[in-house]
């Protein structure tokens, strides 16, 4: 099986060279070296673990959403059509669409689960963006340049998690109280969770993690073997959303 795959990659690589496509060759070559790892080799790889066991004990808690949306000037717009959300909660059946059966235990059935951008290791949104307005940092975070976004919404079609929102109209009138420390957006651009890139790159924790007084959200660097996040991953069975799509989501859920 593996041999066949390697042979295929070799042939594909040769074909890619013929087409003069260097990035493709690099991608295929790096995929071939790491046979057991699904993610790319990085010096830093930020990720998140959500302990839904804790989260479900506080069903009415919206602290993470409120902290994130206030600090990032995310407008509050009612109605499914134009709403903008970076982190929110949706039903178990909607968040884990491939985990459904008729006998789901009551503890999970219809219960709210936190969902946000998965900061995929192989993000389709970055792949499709025609202007590199959505891009990935070396630390794995998928973030955006709002001034470059042309609003084509190709990324929204590409994201298999529905994690992206579009500013269908001017968002500013719908921001209750503006946070002067973070920019607001204009109409006509896409936005999403940025893993608090403005904070984690200077050593601070993301807003959602800080706001969660129950400690259900833990972020950290996956490359550090002794980090809290690695400890959680080592001790608990976790699931990810739609892992079969090859996006390598980096938000892990303890169920």
């Amino acid at each position, binding site marked *: 099986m593996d041999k066949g795959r390697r042979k295929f990659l070799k042939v594909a690589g040769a074909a890619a060279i013929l087409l003069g496509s260097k990035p493709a060759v690099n991608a295929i070559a790096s995929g071939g070296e790491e046979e057991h790892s699904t993610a790319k080799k990085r010096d830093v790889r930020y990720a998140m673990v959500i302990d839904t066991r804790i989260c479900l004990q506080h069903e009415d808690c919206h602290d993470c959403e409120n902290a994130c949306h206030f600090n990032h000037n995310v407008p509050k717009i009612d109605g499914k059509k134009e709403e903008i959300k970076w982190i929110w909660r949706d039903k178990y059946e909607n968040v884990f*669409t491939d985990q459904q059966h008729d006998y789901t235990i009551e503890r999970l059935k219809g219960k709210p689960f936190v969902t946000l951008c998965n900061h995929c290791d192989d993000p*389709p949104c970055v792949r*499709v963006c025609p*202007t590199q307005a959505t891009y990935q940092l070396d630390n794995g975070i998928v973030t955006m340049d709002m001034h470059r976004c*042309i609003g084509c*919404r190709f990324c929204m079609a590409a994201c*298999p998690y529905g994690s992206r929102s579009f500013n269908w109209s001017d968002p500013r009138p719908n921001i209750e109280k503006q946070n002067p420390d973070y920019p607001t957006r204009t*109409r006509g651009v896409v936005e999403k969770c940025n893993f608090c890139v403005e904070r984690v790159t200077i050593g601070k924790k993301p807003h959602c993690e800080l706001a969660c007084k129950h400690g259900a959200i833990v972020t950290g660097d996956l490359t550090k073997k002794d980090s809290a996040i690695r400890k959680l991953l080592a001790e608990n069975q976790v699931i990810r959303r739609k892992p079969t*799509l090859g996006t390598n989501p980096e938000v892990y859920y303890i169920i």
Partner: protein
Amino acid sequence: MIEKALSGSRNYQIWIVILLTIIGAGVGLFVYQTIEGLGVTGMGRDITWGIYISQFTFLVGVAAAAVMVVLPYYLHNYKQFGPITVFGEFMAVGTVVMCQLFIFVDMGQPMRVLNVILHPTFNSVMFWDMTVLCGYLGLNLVIGWIMLSSEHKDTEPPKWIKPFVYLSIPWAVSIHTVTAFLYSGLPGRHYWLTAILAPRFLASAFAAGPALLIILLLIVRKVSKFDPGKEAIQTLAKIVTYAMILNVFFMLLEVFTAFYSNIPGHMHALEYLFVGLHGKSALVPFMWFAAILAFGGIFFMLFPSIRANEKYLAILCGVIFMACWIDKGLGLILGGFVPTPLHDVVEYTPTFVELMISLSIYAIGALIVTLLYKIAIGVKEERIYD
């Protein structure tokens, strides 16, 4: 040559005025949309592309008509297509401009459109789509114009044009393939995630494009002294028939794979389109109407005696064009968004603003085709009178 478009019969002038009126209304509404944002359309967080992008997708296909006349004429020396190649090319010019406009009006920040060129991103299919569309527009405009002006001057076309003519053939295939790749490479959108999408695009393109060309040529014959030739039209009719059969065949292959494999993701969109899903069924009547048109159109086109009658042929071409329009200009894009990534079924209804802007882009296409055809007819009539 251009002066030929500046004067014409009373009907010609009225037609131009009607088109300009629609265009004017659309431009006004586009300004309104630009100021207010895309919230004035029916699109939303879950159905992020609507009538604009689906028209773009459909019209990329219509632009194919050019290659269906260029290929037999230049590669197989099929003489009957000689006099009509320019009409195929000019139709492609009009439709490709429409495609570009539909993308433009769909953008949240249309003023930033040049970012696609300022920051070229080779891993984005959108970048390549822009490249192939602009290239196809240029090729057809240059080839059509040079060929026509040689005819006008009664000289042989310059030799340098030949490589461009040959290039335009694979280029026509590329615009459909790359447009299909916009969709067929997205994980998690099962209705689009299929290798047959590009062949399906090509098949429906080679049906809808020549079908429209036949209708246009019949109009040209009616309003001018130029006769496109009965045999040329009949050959186009055969192309339409075979391409439409392939198109329906490819669609049925999708149905087989989805339902025999029984994989829910693959079945959902088809269920939504043809029977409804979670009680939502806005597109069901459209899709069945399209299916009836497609099968009915093919059935009657198969009889040589029926398609030889140009009155019936015009109707059948309209029927097939309509079937392709519903399938690709409506069902394909909207169906791809069902269910949403979080498995909801959300429906979309275009707004008046959206429909009017779309109509005015069609009017711009019609205006371009009218003006270019007027010039072409003028040149062709000159030769008849000489």
